């Protein structure tokens, strides 16, 4: 489940993080080439986060990516290089993407459940189609959660981070993140039970 290159099974994780941190320091000091290299490295990681929150076909995904990179650049002077840099990056991009999603939802409540369909990941089987539809529904329901819960649920349920990573990225103690996840999941469960389409999908799973 370790998405970040700093899990316990990552022998080279720390040097990679350190190299990225050095690049970030140079970028923070005004070195444009270092900034360019850093952002080129981070862009796919940030895109993955934005895609997880927004869905790959969301019209605002490119803007969210660009805004996240700008936020990362702006945040560099305030980064104290104490934590894991990629966690810091994910935290920023997650917040930008969630904000973009909420702005978009405010503009139009017409959410397309097919926005979870990702190129190269198109369902080739009924089970795959159900999985995609379920992901889209979860994404939609996460929008309705309080921001802190939405953030924790997105990290955990949508992006697949471990508990430790979720707590580190959210910047809160483990117990706090567990509470947020528990409350968020319970809210999701209630929403699923109230939604006929969700019930139909999970009915196909044998409930």
């Amino acid at each position, binding site marked *: *489940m*370790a*998405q*970040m*290159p700093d899990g316990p*099974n*990552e*022998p*080279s*994780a720390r*040097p*990679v993080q350190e*190299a*990225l941190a050095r*690049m970030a320091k*140079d970028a923070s*000091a*005004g*070195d*444009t*080439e*270092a*900034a*360019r*290299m850093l*952002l*080129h*490295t981070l*862009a*796919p990681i940030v*895109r993955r986060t934005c895609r*997880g929150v927004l869905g790959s076909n969301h019209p605002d995904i*490119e803007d969210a*990516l*660009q805004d996240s*990179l*700008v936020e990362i*650049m702006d945040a560099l002077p305030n980064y104290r290089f104490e934590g894991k840099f990629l966690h810091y990056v994910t935290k920023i991009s997650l917040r930008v993407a969630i904000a973009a999603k909420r702005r978009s939802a405010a503009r139009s409540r017409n959410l397309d459940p097919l926005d979870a369909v990702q190129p*190269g990941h198109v369902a080739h089987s009924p089970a795959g189609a159900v*999985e995609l539809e*379920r*992901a889209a*529904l*979860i994404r939609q329901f996460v929008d309705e959660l309080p921001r802190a819960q939405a953030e924790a*649920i997105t990290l*955990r*349920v*949508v*992006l*697949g981070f*471990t*508990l430790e990573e979720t707590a580190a990225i959210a910047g809160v103690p483990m117990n706090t993140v*567990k509470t947020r*996840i*528990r409350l968020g*999941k*319970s809210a999701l*469960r209630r929403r*699923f039970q109230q939604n006929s389409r969700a019930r139909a999908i999970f009915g196909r799973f044998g*409930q």
Partner: protein
Amino acid sequence: MTRPDEHPEEWLDSAVAGELSPARRRELDLHLAGCPACSAQLAAASRTARPSRPSDSERRRDRVAVERALARTAHRRVRPSRRSRALLVRLAASVVVLASAASASVWAAHKWDLHWLGRDPLPPVSIGEWVAPAPVPAAEPRPSDDAEKSTVPPAEPMAEPSPAPKPAAVARRRVAEKPSAAELLQQARDLRRGGNLAGATGVYRNLERLYPQSQEARVSYALLGRLLLERGILEQALAQFDQYLSAQGPLAEDALAGRASALERLSRSTDEISAWKTLVSRYPQSVYAGRARSRLRELGSDAARSTP
């Protein structure tokens, strides 16, 4: 785990890591059958453990986002330190090596983008923008079309306020307000995406005039060439493409295709054949290769028959 709201977070992590005992796995499966959030989480975590390689299209869009982010934050960066390029490349290379060493790990999913670290800075250009013509507004006034057809660059589009201030004041303000090359490039793109092709053309011209040695101006040669091609100002488009192709650059493939298209529309068949042949020989896997071979066949060139 007897209540529905007790979500077995640790067990989920252990399941993904393959460290859950069969008995607990059975208990977890019972929970998953009734919990959409946990079952979705397990699916997401499993996908995360096997991330897919980003597509070429995503990589291109990433490049665009990076350059735009750099342009947007350019004014906030202090004067760059004179850190040597070689040092950065060595640093980047060390990241590549380290990432490669972790090829069995999830980090391998990001290896490909570390590969870019050792390359020259990528231009702030969107191939998507390039391929997809910008929308042309139906009622757009095009007062500068005639000016475009002349060889004289158009006047700077940023209008001075009236009444005209003293020349010295104008000069001071111009110095103070002179936009950077990156800002001009962004401005031109915004105008183009907004459908103001004439305005975008003027800004590209200004960029090339004010910062002729900049990387942004280099990119502008290709982008303006494409824009002029869309507008049907073919001779000038051709000149722009030639200007870009006078040196090596990452947009050469696109510039070659644009050049060939301009020659096609100018009915310069011999030159067009040569341009398409150059494109196919240099970039046999190009997205334009199909078009090139098709045109070569139409023009009766042997090159079309000799290439796959």
